[in-house]
């Protein structure tokens, strides 16, 4: 299945801002992050189609996944 994956802030370094990825059906968001070498504990927010999602969520073909790191600066 094809997914559009959008990365934000530091997650873009050495990766991409937005890409269309081909993944096996049933892949979880956690596995997607693992494949992108994004440590799960560094993920702040996961969104699928603009809605908050968990690592165990299995996106559907065509979904838009957004992965945000934690922000702490002030």
């Amino acid at each position: 299945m094809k997914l559009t994956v959008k990365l934000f802030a530091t997650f873009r370094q050495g990766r991409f801002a937005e890409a269309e990825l081909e993944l096996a059906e049933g892949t979880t968001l956690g596995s997607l992050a693992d494949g992108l070498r994004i440590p799960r504990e560094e993920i702040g927010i996961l969104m699928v189609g603009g809605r908050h999602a968990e690592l165990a969520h299995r996106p559907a073909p065509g979904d838009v996944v957004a992965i945000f790191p934690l922000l702490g600066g002030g």
Partner: protein
Amino acid sequence: MATPTPSALADDEVQRYARHLVMPEVGRDGQERIKAARVLCVGAGGLGSPLLLYLGAAGVGTLGIVDFDVVDVSNLQRQVIHGTPDVGRKKLASAAERLRAVNPHVQVRPFETRLTSQNAMEILQDFDVVVDGTDNFATRYLVNDACVLSGKPNVHGAVFRFEGQASVFSAPGGPCYRCLYPEPPPPGTVPSCAEGGVLGILPGLVGLIQATETLKLLLGKGDPLVGRLLLVDALAMRFREVKIRKDPACPVCGERPTVTGLIDYEAFCGTRGGPLEARGMGAEMTVEELAARRQAGDEPLLLDVREPHELRICSIGGLHIPMNEVPARLGELDPSRELVVYCRSGARSGQVVAFLRQRGFARAVNLTGGILAWADRVDQKVAKY
């Protein structure tokens, strides 16, 4: 939060707040509520600067400020409450002076201290709303827990590079910061604005969202950002919103809270003693030691892991491989050779040293304090940034 009991306006205040008074959503009653309000801002930095200026101008009667830092010239690109003549002054003194100039009707209550588990509840007790303008996770969890335990709303904001976020936590029935982030990130994994930079305007944008939410809470008007996290992407100029649910299992605001008093937040975030010690690294070299080795003609190989654009600001020499490229370029390094890894502050290079040691580079060490320490203690001609 119960809106503050109105406090009568003097004639000159009626003139000053005329543009508020003509709006039915504010009016004289609303302005008197704003005047009676007491808002505590934790941090007078990037977020605190704009929000304090606007809350002061808007007529918030009492503004508390918690800060222990001094104004550095590198703050001025975004911390607009401070000016060039304030460099080297206490941020509290600088901010209080500016606020009095903006609006002499505002009472500024300065707290020259770091917010701690020991003083937080006492400091918070005299305020109606708390605004989080801090720059580290330990204080963010402390502000959150203190707000939940004292029943005060926590107007949250955070920034990094071109991105920011804002929400209102700990409002009645709404989630808290821990509902969104139950666990802090591992120490050293989230770069600070000092490490990664921040667009100077961004804390202005996010700080003023916080100021707006604060005024709405004081007035009891509009839809507050409760249960919603606003994500700001300044490069794309997009504002996204994520719904946040109150977590029934939240250890602070859940149904069976296990955190019923303030805890040790440095320990909770694993930051006591610095992130390197916390991760069990400790392979370090001081800048004085490196300078002595250099003078004696016995300089080890230096590895600069900063980004290319940082190299154009200043350098202390050596091989340059940006941090993210190190795993793919290990072949350029000799594992048997002594290697001193550095970056701007020693945080990123500490992570690289940990990685290199796992890969058999037993003689890799981190330059403690990085270029900043070198510029402070060895060569003041090296630019600090």
